[in-house]
């Protein structure tokens, strides 16, 4: 056993972190929220170049095969930088298309996903598609039917303005019947997994920013980070994130191995990472005080995203139910 990221995986994360740190993502997020997707699409292209989307696309379509662990490494960085766009949706759509057995759709879209040309929406289990207005197409899974559409209703402003929600409209039927559910299951699991990874990165960024603030901000002639109540809240935030991280990695390994417990492992990771990141956002807001409550501070872009990610592709309640829906404990583990 070596339950540690490899040097290559670490390096991949560092590269993405550096790329995104230099790319001015906050400006791209703000533009995205106002409906200007250009800077976000440019970022998307650079992420594709760095190999992010190819991690969900088979080699015959220009990708690297499905690499769940590398995907979680990448999505942790995407979350750390609050990158906008239907990121989880695009990689999940890639899995869906590959599994669906619709050669034409796969041939058309998978290479474009891998190359970053296509921004793809995915709508399942919710009335809304994320960022359909920015997407080249949206795949809709509903009532055992898979559709594809380019049309959507009006954008519904939500708590995270950089997540633009709308109802997909009409569309062409791709496949009907049990094949849809069979292809949807791994795709939705993957969406859940990478959303957990995204939460993790988001939470890390929130914690780092808040620790920095607590070291610098002075009240009552002392940095607020020297007050025990502040310290303990930050310590608890770190604990939440530190114990969520191995769940995310183990879930990715389970997916890669096709383990029967993969769905439960993913659900466990999603609960832990989603709640830890939401707690990190609450902590960030509280310890930044009124400053954290403004949209002017870039931190607000992170704070607003935490609750949406907590619920996306599986609310905590849904995921907890899933954790217990299965084989059960053995000496090797409780899942």
């Amino acid at each position, binding site marked *: 056993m070596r339950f540690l990221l490899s040097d290559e995986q670490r390096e991949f994360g560092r590269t993405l972190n550096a790329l995104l740190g230099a790319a001015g993502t906050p400006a791209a997020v703000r533009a995205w929220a106002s409906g200007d997707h250009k800077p976000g699409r440019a970022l998307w292209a650079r992420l594709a170049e760095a190999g992010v989307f190819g991690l969900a696309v088979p080699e015959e379509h220009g990708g690297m095969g499905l690499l769940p662990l590398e995907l979680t490494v990448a999505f942790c960085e995407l979350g750390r930088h609050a990158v906008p766009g239907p990121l989880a949706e695009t990689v999940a759509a890639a899995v869906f298309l590959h599994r669906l057995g619709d050669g034409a759709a796969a041939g058309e879209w998978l290479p474009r996903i891998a190359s970053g040309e296509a921004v793809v929406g995915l709508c399942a289990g919710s009335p809304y598609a994320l960022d359909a207005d920015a997407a080249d197409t949206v795949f809709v899974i509903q009532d055992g039917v898979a559709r594809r559409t380019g049309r959507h209703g009006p954008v519904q*402003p*939500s*708590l995270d303005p950089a997540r633009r929600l709308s*109802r997909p409209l009409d569309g062409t039927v791709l496949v009907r019947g049990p094949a849809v559910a069979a292809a949807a299951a791994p795709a939705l699991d993957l969406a859940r997994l990478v959303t957990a990874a995204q939460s993790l990165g988001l939470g890390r960024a929130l914690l780092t920013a808040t620790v920095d603030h607590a070291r610098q901000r002075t009240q*009552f002639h002392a940095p607020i980070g020297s007050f025990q109540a502040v310290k303990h809240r930050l310590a608890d935030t770190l604990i939440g994130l530190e114990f969520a991280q191995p769940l995310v990695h183990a879930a990715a390994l389970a997916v890669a191995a096709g383990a029967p417990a993969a769905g439960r492992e993913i659900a466990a990771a999603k609960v832990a990472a989603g709640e830890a990141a939401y707690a990190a956002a609450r902590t960030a807001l*509280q310890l930044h005080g009124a400053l954290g409550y403004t949209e002017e501070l870039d931190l607000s872009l992170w704070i607003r995203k935490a609750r949406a990610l907590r619920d996306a592709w599986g609310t905590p309640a849904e995921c907890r139910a899933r954790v217990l829906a299965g084989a059960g404990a053995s000496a090797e583990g409780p899942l």
Partner: protein
Amino acid sequence: MDLDFTPAEDAFRAEARAWLAAHVPAAPLPSLETAEGFAAHREWERQLAADRWSVVSWPEELGGRGASLFEWLAFEEEYYAAGAPGRVGQNGISLLAPTLFEHGTDAQRARVLGPMASGEVIWAQAWSEPESGSDLASLRSTAVRTAGGWLLSGQKTWSSRAAFADRAFGLFRSEQGTARPHQGLTYLMFPLDAPGVTVRPIGRLDGKPAFAELFLDEVFVPDADVIGEPGQGWRVAMSTAGNERGLTLRSPGRFTAAAGRLTALWRSAGDPSDTALRDRVADAVIGARAYQLFTYAHASRLAAGGSIGAESSLNKVFWSELDIALHETALDLLGPYGTLADDADDAPGQGSWADGYTFSLAGPIYAGTNEIQRDIVAERLLGLPKGRRA
């Protein structure tokens, strides 16, 4: 011990209920945090004032109804239950007015309170400064003596709704180098359109310009707009701060109404067998009832001639945490619709949950952070030794 309203109080409640039923706009007003919405809310204040509902606890000669504390509580319950608009006059009415009643001159009261009650003049508070949040006494903005008055300079921030308000009130350092930071502060009122004032709106978490920064550059304020003695501002302000934390800013009616709406939402949209959500809805109901009863007990103590001090810190922590939990529960109940902003086409009709959620998140921060409140509870109510907090 009883929880009975008198027949007169019941009649007062009934009159308020009837008036609200007849006047509360059927559709919600536009957001208070926009120019259009601010104007609409100002007009609503005028309507309230016209029928003497804007400041019910004030004396009749000032536009009120001389309502007792219990009548005021009943009015607030009815007000929130009716889903009436947010009070754009709130900062003036609940923060400045009590200070004027206690420390102002007759002339100040005569000049300021009428237009405040009618919504003609909307007041913003100007407490915080960039370096003075929890540690309010460390204020740096100055008031410098000049002929017939004072010149205000410096920067204020987190001034709620100052983007659209008319006047503001706050503390300024009028003496430098005092032995303690609380000394040498002066409480002043000033117009937001005066020469030397620059108002820069700040976007709230949800993008709405709910507060503003104020840049002051030698803004002249006449002596007539000093409240209390110069240099005594801290003492004068503390009565207002007590009000902000205590009874007036967050009346129980707000939470009993919200708990009622949450229960209705749960009955209509919730799954009754989902005990996890049921328990959280029940906790919101229990919390709102507890807060209402706690307030009744405090009001009874005041009516019996008692006073309230550090107990208001208990209030602050309790309602702010209740408010967040209640709104988080609503969002979870609403599922994919929970995060939709109030101006979304699909926004759930039963009240403005997303907006209320965002607003609730500010609760543990403003009017003294909950960290400070817990320090106060521990030191003043439990008698624990003061520490350096670090």
